[in-house]
């Protein structure tokens, strides 16, 4: 029941995102079809059918009723028919996304995981040692939290790449000496190139985890059951981890959704600084080139990824919080 309710919510959310994607071009001024056809005409001859398919995609097609258009649109996107990218003409949008997605998934996924583990550990410790010097570094983490991702990226590139020459200026891997594939040389190159982008994500998003966890620890530690555990003479490590932290981590896990949204948004813009070959860079190229098909496809895929990650975390939550199972 619990799980069904959750699934239902994500279906509604996905439906809302798809509908927003359909409605935005129809509600806002500007005619992307003319802009796009102009661009396409420069790159090569345009088939007459292209105009119609673009119109379908962007809502300037007035032949059918709005419901009919909506139906066509749903049919098109359910088969991955996001249209043709102008930026990477004449590659279909779905192919462009397929090439860019693994980069961002690996980068943001790994960085978020590292940040979560690190932030929760520091937060647990700071809450446990509340009122001491460790706790007093907490306000400093808010500075990190308010630093724009892309600015931190600029500063890191300036000092570590331009200044010290430790890291590459931009890109996702060594283009000259390696080619994408599952060999050690490529993977180590990708790790090396991905280090600074990942560091940027870790530094600028860790503050929220530390703070949230620290505050929950402080609240949890004042609970009677923690005092009972202490009174029983259990080892402090055991009280801290299996008694206090285990309960205190729940809101952080539940708050994953909002945090992930921020991380994804931040990394989208950050990728531009590094010219990282991921979703963010494709998104921004699409924005600069008025590539609406690519932009909307990317918006849907990003939303899908975020919703998927949240669903996963939510399902996980049911297993780590016994109360939700009892209630369901």
């Amino acid at each position, binding site marked *: 029941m619990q799980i069904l309710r959750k699934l239902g*919510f994500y279906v509604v959310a996905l439906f809302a995102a798809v509908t927003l994607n359909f409605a935005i071009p129809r509600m806002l*001024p500007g005619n992307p079809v003319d802009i796009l056809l102009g661009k396409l005409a420069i790159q090569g001859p345009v088939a007459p059918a292209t105009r119609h398919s673009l119109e379908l995609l962007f809502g300037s097609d007035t032949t059918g009723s709005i419901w009919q258009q909506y139906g066509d649109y749903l049919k098109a996107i359910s088969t991955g028919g996001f249209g043709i990218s102008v930026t990477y003409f004449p590659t279909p949008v779905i192919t462009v996304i397929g090439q860019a997605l693994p980069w961002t998934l690996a980068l943001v996924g790994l960085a978020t995981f590292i940040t979560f583990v690190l932030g929760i550990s520091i937060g647990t410790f700071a809450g446990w040692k509340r009122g001491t010097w460790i706790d007093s570094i907490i306000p400093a983490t808010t500075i990190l939290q308010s630093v724009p991702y892309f600015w931190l990226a600029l500063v890191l590139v300036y000092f570590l790449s331009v200044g010290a020459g430790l890291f590459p200026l931009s890109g996702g891997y060594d283009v000259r000496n390696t080619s994408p594939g599952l060999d050690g040389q490529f993977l180590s190159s990708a790790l090396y190139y991905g280090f600074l982008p990942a560091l940027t994500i870790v530094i600028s998003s860790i503050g929220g985890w530390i703070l949230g966890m620290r505050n929950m620890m402080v609240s949890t530690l004042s609970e009677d059951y923690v005092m009972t555990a202490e009174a029983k003479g259990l080892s402090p490590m055991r009280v801290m981890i299996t008694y206090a932290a285990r309960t205190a981590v729940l809101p952080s896990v539940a708050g994953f959704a909002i945090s992930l949204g921020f991380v994804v*948004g931040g990394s989208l813009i950050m990728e531009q600084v590094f010219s990282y070959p991921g979703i963010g860079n494709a998104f921004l190229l699409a924005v600069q080139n008025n590539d609406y098909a690519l932009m909307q496809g990317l918006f849907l895929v990003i939303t899908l990824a975020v919703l998927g990650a949240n669903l996963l975390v939510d399902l996980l939550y049911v297993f780590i919080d016994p109360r939700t199972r009892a209630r369901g």
Partner: protein
Amino acid sequence: MPEPINPESVDLLAAGPDARVAKGGGDSLRRLLTPKFVVGAVIVVAIVLFGIIVPFFTQNPRAIDNVGLTPPSAEHLLGTTQVGQDVFAQLAHATRGSLIIGVLVGALTLMLSALFGTLGAYIGGVTDEAFSLFTNVMLVIPGLPLIIVIQSYVPKKSIFLVILVLALTGWAGGARVLRAQTLSLRGRDYVLAARVAGEKRWRIIFVEILPNLLPVMSSGFVFSIIFAILAEAGLSFIGIGATGALTWGTMLANAQNGQALLFGGWWWFVPPGLMIALLGAGLSMINFSIDEVINPKLRTVNVAKLVKEAATA
């Protein structure tokens, strides 16, 4: 159903129901005046004054000169940009621009989140279910990509459009926290008493419930200012912010396009980002202090010291 919770609001929800209502008057004001609050307030006030007063006395921030990309000097306090514009003057005007956007988005967001947060929770039933579902859906759809898509479809991007879009996409977090608070308030004895006494519905919402939500709302207001300034900076950085505006984000975008990184022009791209970080830190410190007033559990004591004292006594 355990719903995602904003880390900032966690402490509010964790506190007992009675902790949520500030006891009003001088007591909570005195408690608010912690060192954290004072430091935060000094930073914020300094930046606000800088944005209000200094632009009247600076050089023209857009005036072009042939001294491109020079380091800080007596004549140009923070050096010049690639086309010889005074960075200090730009910073002052950009501070004003970013602050205006931040405050207006904060105010709009507050109104929207109050509307969706309190109304549904007070009325209850299907209305609450619908408002709550809407809020959660808005919360889970990633905001920035949505903002970017909307912004790219509009040919003429005025500063008010940016403000409107940021507010329309940023209210959900606040609404959630307010809903939780309202749910706990509407069942209180004094609200029931007001209802029995025949007070009108709007009066109960505005006079009985809203004042008790003020601490939570102010914390949400502060948070949405930070959100708005960060989001605007991001939008301007990728070139789809308000056309012709001068904000911290447009400064950073110009610095990136002017290759400030490669030419070592730190004085161009470091100050705007630092201002954002400082303002954010100042506002968060104010937020912490508000949180500690609302939630007594967060007020910290040095446990180790207490134990030692108890042992020696």
